[in-house]
């Protein structure tokens, strides 16, 4: 069962402000209930295969300058620094 505490915990982990955690309990529960179908999939012995790609021709490891002052596009910056809020 999805609880309000779990929603609160996950929304904190994901850094999203939610007014009403209760509102999401049912919504998340409905979706999670559907995911329970995975329990009936016969995959216990299955190995998780990764998508393997052999890369032989990597690009040269050289610095390619980006000829624009990207920092100018930011709302909050000072000199060449991004302005961030205080860490607590």
């Amino acid at each position, binding site marked *: 069962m999805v609880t309000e505490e779990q929603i609160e915990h996950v929304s904190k*982990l994901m850094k*999203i402000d939610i007014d009403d955690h209760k509102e999401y309990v049912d919504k998340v529960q409905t*979706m999670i209930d559907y995911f329970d179908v995975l329990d009936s999939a016969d995959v216990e012995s299955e190995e998780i295969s990764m998508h393997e790609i052999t890369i032989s021709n990597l690009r040269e490891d050289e610095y390619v300058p980006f000829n624009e002052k990207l920092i100018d596009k930011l709302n909050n910056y000072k000199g060449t620094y991004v302005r961030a809020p205080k860490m*607590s």
Partner: protein
Amino acid sequence: MNLKISALEFVQQVQNGNISAEDFVAKTLERIQSIDDKLHAFLSVNEKAVDQARDIDKKIKSGSKVGACFGMPISIKDNMCIKDSKTTCASKMLENFVAPYDATVVTKLKEQDAVFVGKVNLDEFAMGLTTEFSAFGSSKNPWNTEYVPGGSSGGSAVSVSAFECVASLGSDTGGSVRNPASFCSVVGYKPTYGLISRYGLISYSNSIEQIGPLTRTVKDTAFMLNIISGLDPNDNTTIDNKNEDYLSGIDSGIEGKKIGIIKEMVGEGTDPAVLSATKNAISKLENLGATCEDVSLDMVKYSVAAYYTITATEAGSNLARYDNLRYGYDFSVEGYEFNSYIAKARRNFGPEVIRRMIIGGFVPSAGHAGKYFLKALKVKSKLTREINEAFKKFDLLISPTVPILPFKIGEKIDDPVSLFLIDINTVTANLTGKPSISVPFTISNGLPIGIQLLADSMNDKLLLQAAYALEQTTTLQEVPI
């Protein structure tokens, strides 16, 4: 001026001097002006499009080298970057984001003298299959404006279907190109994973998503693929297709080909009209000399649950970059603590994005990962084995693209599970990396039905040949707009 021509017809007519790129692009913009209020395909229009087309005309007249597109007007889903243009992802979070560089697909199309007429609507961050989750409002289906156009590349499908451009680019994570193509009666293509560079596509679920063209004809899709596919040093998941020409031999036919009918995709929950269209398509392919037989992919039953688990997890990680510090809306950092500032800024996400972020935090978290995320990855592995096995026996697989007909705007928006099930036929190609196409096949009570074909990885050329053969068996009525 006939705006209803295909991409290849456009190229030919400009080459022959029958039309100028400038006139055609100008008329296209007029068309957008006059009908897009009704359809809401476009989020922004390129004011310089006519000037760009004029420059291309000048190149043609002066005899200098001209790219393969000859000034063709193209629309592009607003989750791909065009330098100095807004790229909003249909999100309030990126409402004012101006891309500092071109996506690789954009670079390639610009090099071939395509003209981008505008950026088109999608579900916020491509999360959805109706465009109803766009922060800027839903697009409308040109076949009936009370109906959804499908999604998430809904704006792309609408713009091609309603003659607001000649071709479009979308992105397909679980059917986002093929679903709206089916709902709007255009061709939609999801290539082999890695065939098209994703550099400059705003990430949603990197391990399975691909950019793909939406066009009026299968040949046009092959034409677009010739331009945008291939290795890219900026995306190391791209694969070398040795500059394959997808257009040559497209009319080779399908005689002697073996086609598997995916049993799990024509069962319960499929609309009778969709089922009968699929049967009809199968018998037409048989008439062309193919043999069709049932095949079972048992894991399809679990594919949608696996798909949402994997995509929500990847989305949760991808959306972590929206901290409102480098891009986002104008919101001062003064007086805020770091985490609460980010959390507050993220209130600008729409409800579907927030839901998926929560799910994306939930399913891979300690205590839940084994039950959901790891199991989803196992389903993905087993499904891939099953489909690889099927391709030992069959050249192609077939199913309806979407099990149901387009539905009314608002009808399913509050029912996430019934929306999930609409993806059942499309997610397999994404989870397994296989190429897949939706071919417009018939119109039932005024609403389009598309047929989906799949081929093995790197068999994109064969897939397009089969799609072309299927397309030739049907003459579709014109969109009533």
